[in-house]
């Protein structure tokens, strides 16, 4: 007996573009950037977006704006265009709002996800300390980010962007991280 369930996947091909990457391609700045660097930034932005999909914030974190999830950038504005590419997408029914904090770390408390760009060590320590166990998922490529009190440290391995999650910190901040994300977490 040969009973085939043949449903063409051909129509899925146009939709098969990488979800995050396809969205990010809208930015004209991205098209102007050098290809390998732009791709890396796109992957990084997509990774931030996917972190939000596997992390659950406490309900009180959305008390002020229930329908929004706020992605913040701290530091230089070089990553801003890629981050803004994911603005307007949804995570668990909430619309992603991207904020560029620049050097104003005091406003980081209103964020749900905070990407820390290039900054000196003391500024990072101050920023993280200022959050003081608030439910903000902090992400950065800063070396030794986990040691400084950051939750998700990004790093490169064999040309691929990988991450390490400090689950203790995340749990202490009231965040619940999916076990699937745990499986992907690597030691830098």
């Amino acid at each position: 007996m040969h009973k085939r369930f043949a449903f063409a996947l051909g129509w899925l091909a146009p939709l098969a573009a990488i979800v995050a990457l396809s969205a990010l391609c809208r930015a004209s700045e991205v098209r102007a950037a050098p290809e390998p660097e732009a791709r890396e930034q796109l992957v990084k932005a997509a990774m931030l977006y996917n972190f939000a999909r596997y992390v659950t914030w406490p309900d009180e974190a959305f008390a002020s704006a229930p329908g929004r999830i706020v992605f913040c950038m701290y530091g230089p504005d070089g990553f801003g265009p890629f981050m803004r590419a994911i603005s307007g997408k949804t995570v668990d029914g909430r619309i992603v709002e991207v904020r560029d904090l620049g050097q104003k770390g005091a406003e980081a408390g209103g964020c749900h996800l905070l990407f820390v760009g290039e900054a000196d060590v003391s500024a990072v320590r101050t920023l993280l300390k200022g959050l003081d166990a608030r439910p903000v998922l902090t992400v950065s490529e800063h070396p030794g980010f986990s040691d400084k009190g950051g939750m998700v440290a990004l790093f490169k391995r064999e040309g691929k962007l990988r991450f390490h999650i400090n689950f203790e910190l995340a749990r202490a901040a009231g965040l619940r991280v999916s076990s699937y994300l745990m499986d992907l977490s690597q030691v830098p």
Partner: protein
Amino acid sequence: MINALVLVGFFVIVTVVLFTKEYMDINQGCIREAESMSHMLSPQAAAALAFDDRERARDILATLSAQPNVREAAIFAPDGEVFGQYASDGFLRQAKRPSFTGAASGEGHDYAIHKAVLLDGDLVGSIYLLADASEYYEPLVRRAAFMTGGLALLLGLMAYMLFVLQARAVTPMTRILGVMEHVTGTKDFSLRVPMAEDDENSSLARAFNEMLRSIEERDRELAAYRSDLEGIVASRTSELRHEIGKRAQTQERLEQALADKEVLLKEVHHRVKNNMFVVGSLLGMQARTVDDPALRQKFTETQQRIKSMSLVHELLYRRSDLERISVREYFGALLGELRRSCGCIAAGVSADIQIEDIQLDIDHLIPLGLVVNEIVTNAYKYAFGQTGGTGGTLRFRLRTDDRGKTMLIEVGDNGPGMKTPEGEPTTLGLVMIHSLVAQIKGSVALDASSGGVRYTITVPIHE
């Protein structure tokens, strides 16, 4: 045998249905198992795809080594690129994203699952599993082989039994039936059923042959009996014909003799009547020569008596029956003759006559005729003679009684009557009346007490 074949057919159908059902159940079970595995792996694959972690994808697929029936597996990126791959034999073939989504059967007992991997409703890739269900189908195949072998053995056994039955029962029986039909159709009882072996059928054939022999022998005996019987019947028939011929001749002679006798008897009666007529005529001629009226009256009375007798003979020779005469005809004629002979006296007398129509022989009629002649003559002479017959009535009744064994004759008048004689009768008329009635064993009674005279004569007639 038909029932056995139907049973086997039913068994085969039920077995096929059950095997098909089990095959479909196994198929569905395998697909459900594969779907369960893909469902289990899908979230992990989604995470690996989301974070572009191919190593993790391979690790996820490597867990399938715990499922020995999974031969190949792959995780595909949305663009169809192989994101992770697994092969149970360790030899990774060039994987290509399948064109189908869902479940499909492969070669042999292989089956495949290809499902989309979604993350929050977004397509992030797909997962493909190819598994071998041989270990599930193996018992079914073994059982099917066993059942098929058993069925073949059963059919073989049935065929052998059929052959044996055909050779040992059906063929001899068919032979016997053929001879039976031939014997029934042709009545040729000389046929015999050929016998091959000494078994039950041979016993049957022997019994049938013995029956045929008995019938044949009986037929021969019957034919012999029939031949003898035909001879006897022919001889007896000839005798009977001869006897019938003789009897017919005898009857013919008897009939002829009877006819001759009747002719002769009629002739006798005719001659007697003629002779009586001659005697009566002679008495009439003699009476006319006598001067004495009383004497002449005697002659006339005698002449009348002879007439009453000759009337009997006249009726006998005129009728076909020479032994019996209708009393109504005879007494009607006699009373008419007496009325004519009495002339003017009788003319005034009315007659009241009722006569039952019976037949009576000559031995009774002649005496009775003389008796009635005497009584009626006396009535005309003595009862109506003084009045010339005016107002007179002659009454005559004749009937049978006692269921036809006795005849009653009543003769009477309404004249002045007469003195009843005491003792033995003295007049010739009365003497004659009593004498003649006694001659035929009858009785006569005279009643003159209530006016007129009435005679009642009772005669046994043995009718």
